[in-house]
Structures are given as structure tokens and as C-alpha cells.
């Protein structure tokens, strides 16, 4: 199951899933003596929606933090676009095209929605400081291009009406959407979503699911997400990794996973208490 795939296939709904873009090889992460992740391997293929599920404390968030460089695993390797990734700072990982959102929302509260989303495009801003001061035209053209890209994201996520609103004044559901907008603005190769539906009501969950599916469909964005709402995961994802107590106990399509006895035992067993 951990073999790197180089072929492509087309899903039932007509999307093309490409070869492996990221691969986790035998990752182990410890905090002091506690093992958060034990020897986990899986891959993410281009254009797919990959879910990581598991009960609370299964190590899902830790896994996401390993991918995004916030945690450095003690053992194992991360392979990205066919190369082994050296140890990196989170901002370096971000510059490689891996954008993320946070479970508890990390937005720039003092800035407007527009500025927040614009900040997502720092990776695309190439003109240097002095060039910006001296060569005004070029900087302006770049700013315009970025602004246009950002406006498309704003339109896509239907947040035009709060464009100029300071983020601190927004309700929770909209903040989540702005955070997604900022991540999408980076035009990421992989988009990591840490519990995108947490704390939302049914309607907001439906909206968010639609945005995630549409982003994947329209921009071809590869998405890896953590979620513990099984229903949402089964509807959204192409393939699912199931974790429990830091170990991988299942990996496959939603149908395969849901019929996997180990998953049923562990996941449903834990869900009871």
C-alpha cells in the first residue's frame, strides 16, 4: 500500500487523480517519552482529497503538524515531489507550496479580510523591498495581479460582503472561511485542513463541504484533511487513513475503510465512551 504510485486514474465523478505527490515513510513522533505517532506511512496523490481520521488523541493533528513542518519527527522521512525533504522550518515548508488552516483558527485579527487573504500570497510576491520603492510600476503590476487572484478567491468563497471588515469582528463560521481563503490564495500544491468543520452548525458544514469539493474540482488542489465527523469524511474524501493511539489501523477508500474490522472495532469502540 505504501508503494509510490506513478500512474493516474479517473474517479467516478470525472476528476483525474495523479501520481503520489507526498509520502510519509515510517514516521515516529515522540513528546518526551510519549509516542504521539508510531511508525506511520502513507501517501497523498495529486488531485485527491485525503482524509486522516481517528478518535480524539489518535495523533491526527500531530501528523498534520509533521507534514506542515511545525513538528519534527524523531524517525522517518517525508518525501515531497519525489525528493526526500530535509529538516525544514514551518515557513520553509509553506514556501514549498504547502498551505494549511488551524483547528482553532489562526488569522491576523487586526487586519481586514482582504489583507488576510493578500498575506496568503506572500509566496507569490517576488519584488524585493528596494525594487518596490524604486521600481514602482513593476511592484504595482505585481500587486494588481495578486489582488486579482485574491478577488477570485473571495468571489469563490462568497465573502465579498466582508472584504473590508476587520477579521476580529467576524463570527466563527466566517472566520473559518477566511482562513480557507488565505490558504487557497497561496495556490498550494497541498492544502492541509485541520478539522475544517469543527464547531460549525449543519448549514455551515454543508457550505464548507461544498467549498472544499469545489476547490478540489475547480483548482485541482490536492487536499489533506483531518476530521472526526465520519459522515463528512465519507462524503468528501477519495481515500482515508485511519489512526488510533498513534498507529495506522486502516487505509483505503471510504468504503474499504468502513468495512475494515480493525477500524470498526477501534473507531466505533472508542466513539462509545
Amino acid at each position: 500500500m505504501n508503494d509510490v504510485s506513478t500512474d493516474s486514474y479517473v474517479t467516478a465523478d470525472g476528476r483525474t487523480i495523479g501520481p503520489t505527490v507526498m509520502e510519509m515513510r515510517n514516521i515516529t513522533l515522540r513528546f518526551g517519552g510519549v509516542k504521539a505517532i508510531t511508525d506511520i506511512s502513507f501517501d497523498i496523490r495529486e488531485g485527491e482529497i485525503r482524509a486522516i481520521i481517528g478518535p480524539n488523541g489518535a495523533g491526527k493533528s500531530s501528523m498534520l503538524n509533521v507534514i506542515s513542518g511545525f513538528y519534527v519527527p524523531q524517525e522517518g522521512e517525508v518525501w515531497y515531489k519525489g525528493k526526500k525533504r530535509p529538516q525544514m522550518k514551518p515557513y520553509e515548508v509553506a514556501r514549498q507550496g504547502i498551505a494549511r488552516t488551524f483547528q482553532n483558527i489562526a488569522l491576523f485579527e487586526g487586519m481586514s479580510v482582504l489583507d488576510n487573504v493578500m498575506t496568503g500570497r506572500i509566496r507569490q510576491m517576488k519584488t524585493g523591498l528596494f525594487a518596490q520603492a524604486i521600481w514602482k510600476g513593476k511592484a504595482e503590476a505585481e500587486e494588481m495581479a495578486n489582488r486579482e487572484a485574491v478577488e477570485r478567491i473571495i468571489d469563490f468563497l462568497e465573502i465579498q460582503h466582508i472584504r473590508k471588515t476587520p477579521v476580529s469582528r467576524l463570527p466563527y463560521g466566517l472566520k473559518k472561511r477566511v482562513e480557507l481563503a488565505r490558504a487557497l490564495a497561496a495556490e498550494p500544491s497541498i492544502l492541509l485542513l485541520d478539522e475544517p468543520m469543527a464547531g460549525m452548525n449543519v448549514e455551515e458544514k454543508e457550505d464548507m463541504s461544498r467549498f472544499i469539493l469545489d476547490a478540489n474540482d475547480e483548482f485541482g488542489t490536492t487536499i489533506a484533511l483531518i476530521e472526526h465527523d465520519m459522515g463528512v469524511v465519507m462524503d468528501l474524501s477519495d481515500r482515508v487513513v485511519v489512526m488510533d493511539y498513534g498507529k495506522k489501523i486502516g487505509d483505503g477508500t471510504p468504503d474499504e475503510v468502513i468495512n475494515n474490522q480493525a477500524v470498526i472495532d477501534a473507531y466505533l469502540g472508542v466513539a462509545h465512551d
Partner: protein
Amino acid sequence: MSDNIIFGIEVLMNGLMAGVLYALVALGFVLIYKASGIFNYAQGVMALFSALTLVGIMQGQVPFAHLINAALGTDLHHFGWHVPAVLAILLTMAIMVLLAFCVQKFVFRHLVNQEPIILFMATIGLAYFLEGFGDLMWGSEIKKMSVGLPQGGSFWIEENTQWMGLGNENFFGFFLDKLDLVATVIAIVLVVVLVLFSQYTKQGRAMRAVADDHQAALSVGISLNFIWVMVWSVAGFVALVAGIVWGTKSGVQFSLSLIALKALPVLMLGGFTSIPGAIVGGLIIGVGEKLFEFSIGPMVGGATENWFAYVLALLFLVFRPQGLFGEKIIERV
């Protein structure tokens, strides 16, 4: 117009000028505080250090001359050359950037996520270190700063405002120091540049982002280290400007580092996080203390300038702790 009114106007204008200088120093505080949450006690000493360095370079002083002479028994003092002001300023700026880099690398990088009070203590340490280091490097005698800023009363203004006396024979026009005027212009330009920088450049946006949320900044690809070095460099630049102006006005000496203490009440008025607040706060304190001395001073025995600013700040602390422009302080329970 009566003598008193005319004199009052003159006092007012001189107060505005002084206020501009206070604002200049306060600005350095605000920048660092906003971006890193550090209250930089060393800002005043940075101004002194930059002024010392600038004068030292211009006069071709040998750095660490005392140390070298004591160790090697030599009698070196000067290289014997004079560096032009512009070049010296650029060199000083480079040294301030180097200082920013070192401060970040050797001090604050190791204090990430520490309590604000610990960071504050670190800046006190930094202040004393820098003070001693400056002495050691350039000597402790009072130096004269002359980078070509005009000084002395402006006769042009005096002559051209004489008519405003409206026939008052004791009035010979307003007396304003040219240096104060230049300082005002410099301060305005500096503020405009800083605002443009923080609002419209990629680095400025990144700086605001870091000030707001570290994790989020990391996740969009901003290097915190880089931004902090940049912020300390900008603060160093502001310190240099303040150092030049104050140095020209009253000589480069230890008391220069004490202007930091005058900046404190300015910040309490303006709020620690607001650039316009620093400016307005500076002007209020500048004008307030001059006018107070002029109008009330004689009744209470004078020398009110020593304490006026602090009392005003105290009043603000009681009635409006977030300052004029600061963000409202809401404690989360």
C-alpha cells in the same frame, strides 16, 4: 497683540518642536512593541549608541582605543581621516542592522514564547550592555555632532513674522530654531515612510502579520527571525535619526539615553501600539509641558517640565489606560 499672547504662541511652537522629537523616540518603541510584543527599554541607549558611532566614524576615531592602548601600550586615538556625513550615516546604519541581527541571534531567539516581563528584563540588560559597550568603543567624553543640519535661530522667520505683532514694538518676529524645523520635517518624512512601508510593501505586510499571529505568519511562509531582525533594524534606523537630531541639539552624551524616559509618558498617552498615537502623544507632551511651564510654572516655583509629563501620564493611566489610540484592553477571563 499683547506681549503675553505673542510669547505664548512662541512657546506653543517651541513645544510642538520638542514634541516632534519625543514622538521620534516613541516611534521606535511602538515599532518593536507592535511587531514582537517586546517593550524595548534599550531604545534610548540605541539612540545614544548610534549617535556615538556616527560621530566616531565621522571623526575617524579608533574604536576600542582605550582597550587597545591599555593592552598594547600604544597611543592610538584617531585614524587621522574624516568621513563625509552621508557615508558615515550609511556605515552607522549598517552597524545598526548588524546590531539588530546580533540582538536577535544572541538574545531574543532564545527567548521565544517567554513572558513579556522576561523580555523586558532582557532589554534592560541590553541597555546596560550597549551603554558600556558604547563607552568602551568610543569613549565617554561629550562629543559634538555636526552632520550639517542647520542650527541657530532663523532670521528669515523672524523678519517675515514681524508684521504679526500688529504694531507691538517689543515684537521682532517669532524666534524658532532652524534645527527644530528641520527635525520636524525629518520626523514627518520618517512617519510617512514608515506608514507606507508597513501598509504597502510585502515586508510591511509580513511585519504586521507577525505582530498579529506567529503561527499564522509561519503557515503562509513568513520567517519570524527575518522579520524580527528587520524590526530591530527599523528601530535602529529610527534610533539613529533621533540620535542625530538630539545629538546635534544638545551634544552626544550619556543624558541622550535618558530621552527614553521622556518617551514613556508619550507612549502612555498615545498607546503602545499606535503609530499616530506616538506622534500625537509626543506633540501633546511637548506642547503641554512648555505651555504649563509658561502659564502655571511661575506660580509653583518653576521647573515643572521635569514632572509635568509624568503626572499627565499618571492621569491617563487612571482614566484611560489604553491611551488615546491604543487597542482597548480586554482581559479574557
